C-alpha cells in the first residue's frame, strides 16, 4: 500500500508545484531549460498517477528475465490479491485508473495531432492557389491587407508572409522573422504544443496542465526569438515584433486572461537579462530529469529489491 500512496502523493505534490514554478522569470532567461522542466513536470504527474494505479493493481511484480516464470508469478500475485474482497476492489480500481489515464492521454494526443494534420492539409491546398513563392524560395507570400507571418509545420512545411507583413518589415526584420519561424520548424515546436494541448484537453480541470500549456506556448516563442537573435540582433527581432503588431489586425474581442506574451517577448529582447548560470542550468535539468525517472523507480523498487533478494540473498538489504 505504501508505494501507491507515495506515488499518488508525489503526483499531487508535483501538480501543486506548477503555480509556484510559473512565478518569476527564471524560465524566460533560459527558455529551453524551461521547456524541458514543464514537459518533465507534465509527464511526471501523469506517470505518478499511472504507476500508482499500476502498483495498486500489482503490488510487487517479480523481476525476472524468464518470461514463463514472470507470467506464472504474475498470476500467483493477482490470484492472491483477488482472494480477498477488499483486495479485488483495490486491484480493479488501481488497474482501471492506470489504463484509463494512459488511454485518455493517448486518445487526446492522437485527436490533437489528427485535427492539426487535417487543418494543415486544407491550408496547404488553399496556399497552393493563393500563395506565390518569394524569389528567394524560402517562403510563400499571400496577398492580404493584414500583416501576419506564420509557419505550417509537418512534412511539407512552409513559412508564410502576408503582403502586408512584407510591407511592414525591412529586410533585416524580415530575415529575423524568417529565422524565428525556421527555429519553430527545426525545433519541432508544434509537437511540444500538441502534447501540451492534448494533456490539457485530457484533464481540463487540472490547473497544472493549463499552466504548463500557457508556459510552453510562451517559452517556445522565446526560444525561437533567441535563435533568431543569433543571426540578427535582439533589437531587430524586437522591432519585427512591434512592426507586425502595429500592422496586424487588432481583435475587438478580449483575449484570454494573462494577456499576450508579446510584451514579455519585446521587454526581454530589448533589455536582455543574463541566461541562467551553468550551475543553475545543471541543477534544474538534473531535477527535471530526476522527476522523469522517479515514478518508475518508485514503482519498480519493490520488484527490483525482491529480485535482488532472490539472486543475492546475502549481503543486500532485501527491503528498506
Amino acid at each position, binding site marked *: 500500500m505504501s508505494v501507491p500512496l507515495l506515488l499518488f502523493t508525489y503526483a499531487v505534490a508535483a501538480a501543486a508545484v506548477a503555480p509556484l514554478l510559473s512565478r518569476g522569470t527564471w524560465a524566460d532567461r533560459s527558455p529551453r531549460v524551461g521547456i524541458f522542466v514543464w514537459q518533465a513536470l507534465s509527464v511526471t504527474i501523469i506517470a505518478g498517477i499511472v504507476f500508482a494505479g499500476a502498483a495498486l493493481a500489482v503490488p510487487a511484480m517479480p523481476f525476472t528475465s524468464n518470461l514463463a516464470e514472470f507470467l506464472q508469478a504474475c498470476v500467483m500475485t493477482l490470484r492472491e490479491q483477488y482472494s480477498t474482497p477488499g483486495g479485488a476492489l483495490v486491484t480493479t480500481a488501481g488497474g482501471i485508473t492506470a489504463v484509463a489515464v494512459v488511454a485518455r492521454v493517448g486518445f487526446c494526443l492522437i485527436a*490533437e*495531432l489528427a*485535427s*492539426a494534420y487535417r*487543418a*494543415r492539409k486544407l*491550408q496547404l*491546398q*488553399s*496556399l*497552393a*492557389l*493563393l500563395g506565390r513563392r518569394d524569389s528567394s524560395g524560402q517562403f510563400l507570400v*499571400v*496577398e*492580404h491587407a*493584414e500583416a*501576419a*507571418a*506564420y*509557419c*505550417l*509545420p509537418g512534412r511539407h512545411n512552409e513559412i*508564410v508572409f502576408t503582403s502586408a507583413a512584407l510591407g511592414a518589415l525591412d529586410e533585416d526584420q524580415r530575415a529575423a*522573422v524568417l529565422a*524565428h*519561424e525556421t527555429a*519553430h520548424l527545426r525545433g519541432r*515546436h*508544434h509537437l511540444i*504544443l*500538441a502534447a501540451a*494541448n492534448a494533456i490539457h484537453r485530457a484533464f481540463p480541470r487540472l490547473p497544472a496542465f493549463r499552466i504548463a*500549456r500557457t508556459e510552453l*506556448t510562451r517559452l*517556445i516563442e522565446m526560444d525561437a526569438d533567441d535563435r533568431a537573435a543569433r543571426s540578427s540582433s535582439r*533589437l531587430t527581432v*524586437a*522591432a*519585427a*515584433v*512591434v512592426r*507586425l*503588431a*502595429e500592422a*496586424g*489586425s*487588432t*481583435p475587438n474581442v478580449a*483575449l*484570454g486572461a494573462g*494577456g*499576450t*506574451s*508579446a*510584451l514579455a517577448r*519585446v*521587454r526581454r529582447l*530589448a*533589455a536582455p537579462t543574463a541566461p541562467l548560470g551553468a550551475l543553475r542550468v545543471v541543477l534544474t535539468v538534473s531535477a527535471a530529469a530526476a522527476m522523469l525517472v522517479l515514478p518508475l523507480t518508485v514503482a519498480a523498487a519493490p520488484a527490483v529489491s525482491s529480485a535482488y533478494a532472490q539472486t543475492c540473498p546475502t549481503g543486500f538489504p532485501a527491503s528498506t
Partner: protein
Amino acid sequence: MHRLGQLESTIMDRMWSYQGAAAVRDILEDIQREREIAYMTVKTVMDTLHRKGLLMREPDGRAFRYRPTQTREQYAAAHMGEVLAGGSDRTATLLHFLEQIPADEVAQLRAVLDQAAQPKAQTQVQTQASE
C-alpha cells in the same frame, strides 16, 4: 499529385484574371500559349475545382461556362480569416510569429522598443560627434 495541384493553381489564376465566365477551351488556349496541354486534362481539373466549390458553371450549348465562386481577394480573406482566428485558439496547426494584439498593448510594445533603441541612438550620435 503535386503537379495536379500546380495545374489547379494555374487554372484558378487564369479564372481570377478573367472578367466574366470562361469555357474550358478559353483556358486551354490560354495555357497552350505557354505549353502543350490536352483538353481533357484541363477539363478534368476544372471539374475538380467545380466539385471543390471554387468554380461554378452554367450550361452553354454542349459545354459549360465557368466562373469563380469568389474573387481572389474574397478567397484570400476567408483563408486568412481562418489562419488568424486559429492564432488565439493556440492549436498546433500552425505557429504564428505573433498572436493578435489589442490596440492598447501595441502602444505599450512601441514604447518599450523606443526606450530600448534610444540610448543606443544617442551613443551613436555621441560617437559620431566626437569623431
